């Protein structure tokens, strides 16, 4: 390599086209090239991206050929390590975005390692070297690996601490603030004193509060179900709109897939993503694996995945949570939009396109679009049926109603589609919150961003074992508790940012969900205790109005909430689940068990991420729409 020669312009103008070069070198067939050129016209991306995404050329061979085309040396960054002293911390994200790294100094200038020599990259190199630079070609994998290797502390620190640094008030790193502890202990003290000196009045007052809460909770859920049942609320993006969209106009999409100790489901998710209806060359898929998860890393390497898949190794650090891992991976995201899928997820094939269209139709300040979640193994056992009913009610009724009523939407764990620049601007997910998605939804709303929903479904595996379910549910409820505590640190500020409807919606939908799970066993205990003993001791704490409210909640409230569970299957035509909905009170009891476990963990292990085991089902997923198409045929 001639270190004295500095090139400042594109040197490939006289070179052989890349495709021809690959054919000449025996790395590509003519037929493949013809197909790739057709796709290039359709997708509007570069030939190289298409070839790599299709896996028709190995990455190493491709970049070597690229180096030949650009008449530049090819460098293996495993062997020739970059000079880290040239790196700037605040430029690290740009390096991974543009796939460029300062390699070393030379002849008064800087030699860069480049994987993607675009005009933007040349401009960057020019800007960051005072005009004196040269470059060598390397592979994308080398850039990503080097960046992680040399700067993992920086990326880790950002992933863990950036939100706490920029918005300490919104970090769940501190479970209870001093003010909250003061209020909690103060309230408890007042209650104890009151109960000592005025026991009956205190109990009556507590009963009044509980009765009122239950009535409002019930009323709100009926309202959400009514609003969510409106036919117009359903379809945001039609199939015709999806068919009409031009692949050329689609943006680059980053797909984050965090996993931990799930080597068996890896082939399934990668296959799902390959089959997604989106230009493969516009996909930037990150398989986010913990550094100590050697099993899954090895499985990923063995799959010999196409270049659109990248393995992001997250260094071991605390807290060891999914949001932390996603924050880490976000530093390497290159798409305009970004979404998350769990390892067992099976999104509908056109979900990404629907999300793109939904964003285009949504207000400009829309930060995220939430797709619907449901389960493909609904019929496996009683638990999966209940889970399906619950999710159907939540995603098909409540979330669209929340959007229509302008109440903060607690995002679901996956299939949230973000605008990357906004996500980075709000410092992404809280690594300390075990329901980081719910928290982010509220935070975005507070910052005047809009959260929308789209009529596309991702099918997941419903956990089919009680123990697994309790672990998962207790984590979710703990996360809701965290979310509530974080956003109620400054209730007046929250009220001002969310408005009246949003504020009270938040109280009942987040706080109320937790409170009702905690209260339910106490109320049932009281009721069944009375039923068994027929005691009159409790009469004094149930004055007439409270008695009527309690009877209403017990009888009509519970009855109609069971009724809601029967209705929620309509949108998905899962009518066979309706008789099972009559057993939903048992499911509610399980939620209460999980809630108490969550409360215990909130105090003792607030950041502990209780991993849900997946891959336990024997059910296979078939996209219901494909099933319908086959049936129609």
């Amino acid at each position, binding site marked *: 390599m001639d270190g004295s020669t500095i090139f400042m312009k594109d040197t490939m103008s006289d070179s052989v086209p890349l495709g021809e070069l690959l054919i000449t070198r025996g790395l590509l067939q003519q037929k493949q090239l013809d197909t790739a050129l057709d796709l290039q016209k359709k997708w509007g991306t570069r030939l190289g991206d298409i070839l790599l995404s299709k896996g028709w050329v190995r990455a190493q061979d491709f970049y070597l050929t690229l180096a030949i085309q650009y008449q530049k040396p090819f460098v293996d960054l495993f062997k020739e390590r970059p000079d880290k002293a040239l790196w700037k911390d605040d430029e690290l994200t740009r390096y991974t975005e543009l796939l460029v790294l300062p390699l070393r100094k030379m002849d008064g200038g800087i030699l860069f390692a480049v994987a993607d020599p675009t005009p933007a990259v040349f401009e960057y190199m020019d800007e960051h070297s005072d005009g004196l630079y040269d470059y060598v070609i390397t592979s994308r994998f080398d850039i990503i690996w080097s960046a992680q290797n040399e700067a993992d502390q920086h990326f880790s620190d950002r992933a863990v601490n950036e939100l706490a640094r920029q918005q300490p008030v919104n970090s769940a790193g501190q479970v209870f603030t001093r003010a909250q502890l003061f209020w909690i202990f103060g309230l408890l003290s007042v209650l104890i004193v009151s109960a000592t000196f005025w026991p009956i009045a205190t109990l009556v007052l507590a009963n009044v509060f509980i009765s009122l809460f239950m009535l409002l909770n019930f009323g709100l859920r009926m309202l959400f179900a009514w609003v969510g*049942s409106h*036919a117009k609320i359903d379809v945001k993006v039609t199939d015709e709109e999806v068919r009409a969209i031009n692949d050329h106009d689609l943006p680059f999409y980053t797909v984050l897939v965090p996993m931990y100790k799930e080597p068996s489901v890896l082939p399934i998710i990668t296959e799902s993503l390959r089959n997604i209806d989106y230009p493969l060359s516009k996909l930037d898929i990150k398989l986010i694996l913990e550094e100590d998860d050697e099993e899954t890393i090895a499985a990923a390497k063995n799959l010999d995945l196409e270049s659109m898949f990248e393995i992001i190794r997250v260094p071991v650090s605390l807290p060891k949570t999914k949001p932390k891992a996603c924050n880490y991976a976000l530093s390497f995201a290159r798409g305009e939009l970004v979404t998350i899928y769990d390892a067992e997820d099976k999104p509908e094939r056109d979900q990404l396109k629907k999300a793109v269209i939904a964003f285009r139709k949504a207000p400009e300040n829309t930060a995220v679009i939430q797709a619907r979640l449901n389960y493909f193994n609904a019929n496996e056992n009683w638990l999966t049926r209940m889970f399906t009913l619950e999710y159907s009610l939540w995603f098909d009724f409540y979330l669209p109603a929340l959007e229509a009523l302008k109440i903060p939407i607690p995002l679901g764990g996956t299939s949230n589609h973000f605008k990357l620049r906004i996500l980075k601007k709000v410092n992404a997910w809280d690594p300390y919150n075990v329901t980081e998605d719910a928290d982010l939804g509220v935070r975005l709303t507070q910052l005047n961003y809009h959260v929308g929903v789209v009529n596309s479904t991702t099918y997941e595996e419903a956990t089919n074992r009680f123990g697994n379910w309790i672990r998962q549910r207790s984590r979710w409820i703990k996360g809701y508790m965290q979310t509530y505590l974080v956003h109620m640190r400054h209730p007046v500020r929250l009220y001002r940012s969310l408005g009246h409807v949003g504020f009270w919606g938040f109280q009942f939908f987040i706080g109320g969900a937790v409170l009702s799970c905690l209260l339910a066993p106490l109320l049932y205990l009281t009721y069944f205790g009375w039923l068994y003993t027929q005691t009159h001791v409790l009469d004094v704490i149930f004055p007439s109005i409270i008695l009527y409210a309690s009877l209403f909640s017990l009888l*009509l409230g519970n009855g109609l909430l069971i009724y809601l569970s029967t209705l929620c299957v309509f949108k998905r035509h899962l009518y066979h689940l*309706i008789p099972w909905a009559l057993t939903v009170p048992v499911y509610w009891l399980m939620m209460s068990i999980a809630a108490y476990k969550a409360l215990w963990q909130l105090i003792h292990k607030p950041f502990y991420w209780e991993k849900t085991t997946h891959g336990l089902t024997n059910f296979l997923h078939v996209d219901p729409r494909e099933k319908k198409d086959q049936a129609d045929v």
Partner: protein
Amino acid sequence: MKVNRQRADFAWLLLFGVLLTGFCVWLTGNNFSHEMALRDWVKVLGVLDADPFRLENLGLDTPHLPLYLLMPFAWLSPDAQGVAPYLLSSLLIALLLTVWNHQLRHQEFALWQRFLLLMLVLFQAPLLWAATTGGHIALTLLIFYFVYLACLRMNFQADLRSFIMLGLLLGLLFFVDAVALFIFIALFPFFALIAPRRIFLEAPLSVYIVICIPLGVAVLTWAYLGWVFEGGPGHFIRQPGSTFLGAWQHAADSPWLIQYGGQWFAPLAAAFMLLLVYFPIVFLLLALAAKHKDHLKVSLALMSVPLIAIAFATSKFYLERPVELLALVMVAVMAELSIIRTRKGWTFPAVVLLLVAGGASGWHNFLQTPDPVVRDWQNALFSRLNNTHTADVALGQFLFRQQGEVLIDDFTAYRVIAAYGNTEKMALPRSDLFKLQVRRQVPDIDYIVVPDPRVGQGDWDRINKHFPDLYRSGMKDYQQVYDYQGWRVFKHVDG
């Protein structure tokens, strides 16, 4: 524009309200009274005057929602309070007509056409009866209007909201009128026709479950409350005098039940004949609905519901007079007119003609009915009725002049209490004072009122049940101070 429409709707409501209220005032001014209306009003007085306030004192032998709606009327002047149930029923029918008028706008009728239709419907005998007799049927008609539309919508649009509406309305109806169960039973077999075919074929059981759950919850709730407050879940269908039993206990007073009680096909046929007489327009509407196969199918099913309900209720000795359930057909006609285009061509004159014809023949039939209550109503249209309950009124006035608390059963003495005007000094059966007194061998209260146990419902009187010899032989420490036409009052004397 929305505000203007709301103002117009309010104006119509006012118009109908004034018309029907005027009618009610005229009837009650001529001494017409309906037993159910009086009973309801006395129950409401009993709860409002009691201390502490307890809703359960309304009893569970009658649906509560109309009673709750009566409570605000307690703020009327004492003289006007007696008309409260009639005012309520007239307001509810006024509301029904206003809602219908609002929906007729979509048919783009001219104002004069709408006015004509409204007046023709208003002056149909069954609707006027429902509006002016203070019973629960007025609210039932209002709810059935929405039930009808929900059924049509469910079939035409397979809309989830229509399932929700239908289920909730049927559940709500149970808290309005005991006849809800008969309407539901009549409607039940037709769910297979009304539900969207695709959904029904896919999951028939699920369709039934979704529609029936709210009513099931309502019935279970009532049974549970009966167990809590009255000692047994079946109380509401076993308690003598319960409205859930209908006319069962005084079937002998009902000419309809004398003729058809306990039968099924005969009252069904009779109901069909009544349909021909009162509502010949039904056949025109069905013919117009026949343009769409599904519409005809659903409308035919729904129009049959009142007839089947009449037949079933008669077979169980529940229904005293068929005209009350026949009014459901009027509501069905109103619902159909709000969706079938009849504005243009020959259809509008045909509609008017058939409404006029049905109105005339309906009135003719109505005026011929041997039902004594209906006859009273008719006579009160033209002249003042003689007060046939002078004994009750006299007792009420007597008690009004006394000082002290009175042990009295509102089930038998409701007219007495109505004449008295309030229940402030009265120990009624659900009060703690009443329960305490009847447990004693000799009560300790100022006055005890008992009817003759040998006459009418006197043997159902709860005081007579606890003290069976009181009317005939008196009681220690008590002196008889009043005896008139089957009523005796005993006053507590010291020593």
